[in-house]
């Protein structure tokens, strides 16, 4: 082993060892755990542990709340990803205009919600969304919309949480898109303008191809992020009303750490993992089709 090689291992081995211990090993074990009936009894005494094969998965398939949580999570992602990415992109485009002054100031302020604790801001938003005394309903009252029972009506609870989540996270992709927009070739834009291309045509044929890869990456990350919603329902709605905000992760947490059905909970975790993997793969394929990757 060369001197350089020895140094390289000294530099990398500690972090690799930790990654192995807290990420790789547990992920492999999760697969093993998902085919057992690991529960409170096994937690007390390992001899109570039994092998159940795909039992946990077939069991889950017969659990209505599991399907409900999958549906809720899908709804979160389906509505949330376009909303969050759309707002991020719109804001980045708005801030990209040459006439906008004090850009660094706006950027910092619009980004600020992203660095706050989800739990703390969820508490704030629970109050903002209060049916009687909340600012949101007060503002809606101005435009003639009657009070909405945001967190108490099963039809309003997902939009309510989505408003909060979008507010909290859109600043991140706004910054990412700002960086991408700065790489849009200026002379190409000028040429298109001279050729008489309108605002939309320039966006569609010059801007979009240039920021395509960034957009795709942001979409993949956002889908993964929205599939992992947990703290918001935990603090704001406890998964209700009528289980309308029970997400896959909330369901997993309850199975695992409220009822201590760690075998079943691991099966849930694996379903989530596979879903994220499939969606990432599909998005990468779509991206390649449009030659963004």
């Amino acid at each position, binding site marked *: 082993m060369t001197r350089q090689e020895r140094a390289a291992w000294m530099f990398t081995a500690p972090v690799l060892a*930790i990654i192995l211990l*807290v990420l790789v090993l547990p992920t492999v074990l999760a697969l093993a755990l998902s085919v057992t009936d690991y529960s409170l009894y096994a937690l007390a005494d390992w001899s109570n542990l039994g092998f159940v094969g795909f039992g946990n998965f077939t069991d889950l398939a017969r659990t209505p709340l599991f399907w409900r949580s999958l549906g809720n999570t899908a709804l979160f992602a389906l509505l949330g990803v376009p909303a969050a990415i759309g707002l991020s992109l719109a804001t980045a485009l*708005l801030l990209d205009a040459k006439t*906008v002054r004090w850009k660094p100031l706006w950027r910092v302020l619009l980004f600020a919600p992203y660095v706050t*604790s989800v739990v703390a801001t969820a508490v704030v938003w629970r109050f903002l969304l*209060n049916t009687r005394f909340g600012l949101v309903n007060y503002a809606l009252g101005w435009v003639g919309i009657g009070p909405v029972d945001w967190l108490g009506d099963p039809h309003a609870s997902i939009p309510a949480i989505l408003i909060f989540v979008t507010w909290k996270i859109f600043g991140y992709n706004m910054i990412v898109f700002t*960086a991408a927009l700065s790489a849009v070739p200026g002379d190409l834009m000028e040429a298109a303008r001279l050729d008489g291309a309108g605002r939309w045509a320039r966006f569609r044929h010059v801007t979009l191809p240039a920021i395509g890869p960034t957009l795709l990456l942001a979409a993949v990350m956002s889908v993964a992020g929205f599939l992992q919603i947990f703290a918001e329902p935990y603090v704001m709605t406890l998964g209700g009303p009528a289980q309308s905000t029970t997400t896959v992760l909330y369901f997993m947490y309850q199975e*695992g750490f409220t009822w201590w059905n760690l075998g079943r909970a691991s099966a849930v975790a694996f379903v989530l993992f596979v879903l994220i993997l499939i969606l990432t793969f599909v998005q990468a394929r779509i991206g390649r089709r449009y030659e963004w990757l």
Partner: protein
Amino acid sequence: MAVKVSRLRIGAILTNALVAVLTLVVTLPLAWMVTVSFMPRGESNAFPPPFWPSRWSLENYHELLARRLIDGAWFDYRIVPAIGNSLFVAAMSTLLGLLLTVPAGYAFAKLRFRGRERLLKLLIASLVVPGQVAMLPLFLIFKQLGLINSYAGVILPSLAGIFAVLFVRQATLAIPDEMIDAARLDGASEARIFRTIVLPLLTPVTVTLALFMFLGSWNDFLWPLIVLADQHLYTLPVAVAAIAREHAADGELMMASAVVTTMPVLLLFLALQRYYIGGLLGGSIKG
């Protein structure tokens, strides 16, 4: 011509106004959080919702932070110890995280060793695995190791900084090989090269990374919630969530707890925003 210029002016004013209104709407919840936290108890339960306290009161902070005797037993919301716990946990995971990931990121960029490319690919691939998949078995492993209900149990998983290693590697690639090779010819040891040549060049990146790590650890919720059962070890988000699930109606008190949790990191972010946003922008935009 004059007409065209004034049309451009109006467009510019409208764009700027739009940006200002958007920013106002986005920052309003945080501003309201602060003003409500200073309102006398119960004042925010009114319609129309008051934005400004009738008088600035510290009673919510006193109720939240002070320990007092109720029916012969000491009671507090355990927010003060939670501040200490959060500070300690975030500081330790930042410090240890940097110690572990900065040298590793450098090694992946500049040191030649067998298996480097394969390891790098594995690291990138493992970014797809959501941390939650590992959480259930990790809980059982930590239970065997006696790490449940300990600071170490909270901190250890945050040290698996794959993203951090890749981030440092990316930044290190910009350092010219010639500088490192010249030092090597002068007979400097690898550790010395890293300390005296590479590390000073990586200072801005390290500050950015430290900020990412500190904020990430301070705001982390699910894992501390799982691993900490003892209320005296609760970090701020876990403590606030516990209060929030019981005291839903106490608007002013909850706002005070949100202020205590968000303000330290908001101020830290505002002070170091250049590094944070600069790190995300990747040096593509100045200012």
